[in-house]
């Protein structure tokens, strides 16, 4: 029984530390015998991130079958994979910030409204003559304050994050409507909109993708290689145990909501600059995509488990799927169906795999069972 638990738990714990998920390293370092290390390698290969990479490869292969333009010429521009990737970056960075929140057992449904609100504030400030250099930091502060509001309601008053952020989902969107009304703002200066849809000078890399990659590296480093990340995982596994080991649980949770609000506000800025327009409905329905990416990336919606590399692969998988569907002539309404199905199946599949493993173990154990019943107190190996 202890062996089984090791086989199941080891990779899960190691998953927190291993950053390079693409390389399926054997995760069980402390395995004692051949059978154990074989099993460790097997569960390393069976890791969710690896499966996700395979799904990604299949989708990309499918995309190239639909149209040779899927990857080939003009990678970032036409209706292909690259364009879809650079168009997913707002939700991608929000998914990064959503990951620690879900790992801690919370959720932030309000991000899509913060996208709208930050755009509205940015646009209003811009119309009032405040330059974007000043407007963008102000908007980030607004995002942080919104996140702080969420965090304090959740931690100080002990309210469930689901309802609090459902409330602020409406509240922030309402503020956004009040600030902007039915008007819209456009014609931002071109040196700023270049950030929304331009490329890093001298390369073919969109600015938004670079931003995402930098943020992803920061999140990955913090989540998997620092004490902050360890605290986040410990809070997600067991809040009481974390508190008794000296983690200031409320502070960590609040901080992550602040980060989420700020990142959502930043995503709102990117969206505004990419569309070169701000309307009151900017960002509606993005929360579904953000949560989908996180869950697809292997983050356990019940908390305690998840990796940033998984989320990064999920971003590309989703972008690949969206562009393949678009090339196949599937309209955006049906693309949502695909995303929804993907969301459900990404939870069902590991669940079924786990049940299967339990079943296999049970069968194996019943074969190995000794002829006599164990004496009370005897350790059955």
């Amino acid at each position, binding site marked *: 029984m202890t062996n089984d638990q090791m086989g199941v738990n080891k990779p899960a714990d190691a998953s927190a530390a291993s950053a390079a998920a693409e390389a399926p390293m054997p995760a069980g370092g402390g395995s004692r015998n051949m059978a154990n290390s074989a099993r460790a390698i097997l569960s390393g290969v069976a890791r969710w991130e690896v499966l996700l990479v395979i799904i990604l490869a299949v989708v990309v292969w499918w995309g190239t079958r639909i149209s040779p333009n899927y990857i080939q010429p003009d990678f970032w521009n036409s209706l292909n994979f690259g364009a879809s990737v650079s168009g997913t970056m707002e939700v991608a960075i929000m998914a990064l910030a959503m990951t620690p929140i879900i790992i801690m057992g919370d*959720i932030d449904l309000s991000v899509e409204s913060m996208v709208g609100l930050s755009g509205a504030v940015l646009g209003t400030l811009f119309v009032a003559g405040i330059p974007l250099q000043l407007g963008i930091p102000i908007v980030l502060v607004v995002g942080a304050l919104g996140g702080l509001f969420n965090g304090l*309601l959740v931690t100080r*008053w*002990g*309210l*469930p994050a*689901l*309802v*609090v952020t*459902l*409330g*602020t*989902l*409406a*509240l*922030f*969107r*309402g*503020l956004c*409507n*009040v600030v902007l*009304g*039915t008007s819209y703002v456009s014609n931002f200066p071109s040196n700023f909109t270049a950030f929304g849809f331009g490329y890093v000078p001298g390369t073919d890399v969109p600015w938004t993708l670079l931003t995402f990659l930098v943020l992803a590296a920061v999140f990955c480093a913090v989540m998997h290689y620092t004490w902050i990340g360890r605290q986040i995982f410990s809070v997600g596994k067991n809040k009481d145990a974390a508190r008794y080991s000296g983690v200031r649980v409320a502070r960590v949770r609040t901080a992550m909501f602040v980060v989420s609000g700020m990142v959502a506000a930043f995503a709102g800025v990117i969206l505004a600059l990419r569309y070169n327009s701000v309307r*009151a409905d900017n960002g509606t329905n993005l929360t*579904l995509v953000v*949560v*989908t990416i996180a*869950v697809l990336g292997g983050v356990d*919606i*019940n908390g305690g488990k998840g990796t940033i590399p998984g989320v990064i692969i999920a971003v590309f998988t989703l972008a690949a799927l969206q562009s393949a569907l678009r090339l196949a002539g599937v*309209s955006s*309404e*049906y693309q*949502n*169906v695909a*995303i*929804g*199905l993907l*969301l*459900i199946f990404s*939870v*069902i599949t590991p*669940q*079924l795999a786990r049940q299967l493993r339990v079943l296999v173990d049970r069968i194996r154990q019943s074969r190995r069972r000794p002829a006599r019943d164990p004496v009370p107190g005897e350790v059955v190996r």
Partner: protein
Amino acid sequence: MALSAPANVRAPSSAGPMIWRIARSREVTLAAVLIAVAAFASVRAPNFLTADNLVLVTAFAAIIAIAAVGEALVILTKNIDLSVESTIGLVAFVVATVLKQHDMPVPAAWALGIGLGLVLGMANGVIVTIFKVPSIVATLGTLSVYRGLDFYVANGHEVNLVDLPAGYSDPAHQTLLGFQFGGIGFSGIPIFVILAILVVAAVGMALRYTVIGRQFYAVGSNAEAAAVIGVRSRLTVFLAFSLCGMLAGIAGVLWGIYFGTLYASSASGLSLQVIAAVVVGGVSIAGGSGTVIGAAIGALFLGLINNELPLLKVPQEWLTLVYGAVILVAISTDALIQVRSQRAKARSRVR
């Protein structure tokens, strides 16, 4: 660990003086706030208290209330159903489409719609209980899947009132039990409201006085303890999702009658309103506590606000803001009261 009924579960035989219990209950406070808001509105906006307007408000609130009763059942079991809006939209559209294209008798089309709602709810239930997908993820997925089905059925078209049988939208405005006595007239109770009252009464009684009803609370407040005393929690959760789907189906049929014109995107964003009604009505999102009457009153309260803001000349843009504020105030009040009562309990224990 035994099911020692946490304080917030209102068991039928909870102790304490009757008056206190009534005053403390969320339903009564909310009803009082509701009456105060209505009174304020009728003073400030004379249009509010006209029979036409009241029928309009209450009939729509009744639709939300029926969906909210279903949602409350799910939330009681510590789950959530985000897909109700898609179920309502899909059922409304399918019913209208079969009436338009297949000349189906109206009651048969309604039955089909309610059946469709039940099936969609059961699908949610299967995903949650058999495949063990957390309900928030499962219904976030079916939210877009069911909406996609709606787009598939609609295929870019819409259904207008002229496509439907003559007088199809009339029940939304009809009332029963109206009378005219001397100078006093009473325009009667809208049919939709009577229907909602029947639903609330039936589900409310079943929750309070039947074994299955109590099991909803048991599963929601402590699933392990419930399992120990022999409650089949997965079956109960499945039942909750199925009933939620069926009630959303009824709401969808009513939605079609109320509006007459239907698009593939009808009822988008309604889940927020339904869940808000449940939460404002005092059903705990943590499960195991609350009543369906509260959820229905919550729906009426939100419907009232929806109607009042334009009458009070508040711009439409403020509506979402007010909704959000109402949700936050409602749950914060709950938390405050709970903290207070816990402190009071702790103090009395010290003495």
